């Protein structure tokens, strides 16, 4: 039979690695530029001189509670963004992990 005794230990180490990633997450705030093709209407206006009509219509279709991984009404300096970024990383990991866990628990029945 295959041994699974290491599996728990490996999992624990990987969880520590995840916690380390969450602690380090403000590093991701250093890059301030907008990713290619993710510009807001104002940025497009500046770049091409107009806002495409369809884009204008669909833009802002959905209002997210933690838009851009930040708290509502926060400032745009690095220290002001950091708390919201931490909240986002923690909420995101818990909710994403939770959704995947529940989905896995629901559909996976094999125990061999």
């Amino acid at each position, binding site marked *: 039979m295959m041994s699974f005794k290491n599996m728990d230990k490996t999992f624990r180490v*990987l*969880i520590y690695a995840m916690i380390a990633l969450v602690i380090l997450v403000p590093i991701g705030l250093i890059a301030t*530029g907008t990713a290619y093709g993710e510009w807001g209407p104002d940025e497009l206006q500046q770049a091409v001189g107009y806002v495409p009509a369809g884009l204008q219509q669909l833009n802002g279709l959905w209002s997210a509670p933690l838009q851009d991984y930040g708290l509502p009404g926060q400032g745009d300096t690095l220290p002001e963004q950091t708390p919201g970024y931490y909240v986002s990383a923690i909420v995101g990991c818990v909710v994403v*992990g*939770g959704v995947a866990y529940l989905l896995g628990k629901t559909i996976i029945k094999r125990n061999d």
Partner: protein
Amino acid sequence: MHIPDGYLGPTTFIVMYLIMIPIWLYAGYWVQKSLRSRQVPYLALGAAFSFVIMMFNVPVPGGSSGHAVGSALVGIVLGPWAAVVTTSCALLIQCLIFGDGGVTAFGANCFNMGTVIPFVGYYTYKLISGKSEITSNLRIAAAGIGGYLGLAVASGVAGFEMGIQPILEHTASGTPLYMPYGLNVTVPAMLIDHMGFFCWVELIITALGFAYIAKNSPEVIFDYKPDTAKKPDVSKGVPAL
């Protein structure tokens, strides 16, 4: 690579949803058929890992930014179909809670990041690693190259989806209604940003993550077969039907 609402016209985003429906269904079926309940925590961890790694934005000279996705590593460890599930979970929450990636573009984003990356990543890894030892350096390099290529191809595909918009969707006078830049701009721009920068991050995390798991718990890897032939477990007697 999270395409926002408004960059893809209805033709493209509806087609991308239609492509994703059978992929999601088969991915769910594959996960049910192939994974075991003890792998569920790894499934959750893989999804959370993808989520957090995408928060590490990397600046690019010229003012743009981007990130790795982490779905090549999940694809190699738990299987590309499992990575469809984990990455789609991460993308769904990013879209709904954080406004990253459009609601209309969710299908396209799940195709690019949740399907292209793990499949290109896994098959590249499989092709290069061949029958080498699970802990061999070749296999670690194969995982890294799989991560690099997976993200590179996905960025080109995303660039293609955006770049065909001026052809597909425009006013009577020819003014683009959605993404205003054409293929000649979007595809090279996406490829240069990714292959120059973010793919290297994907390469490093895929190689490191794979090396750690292969060394310590190769039994987690979905297609791992131990060298020694598995002895039948006689203690349990006749297998239950």
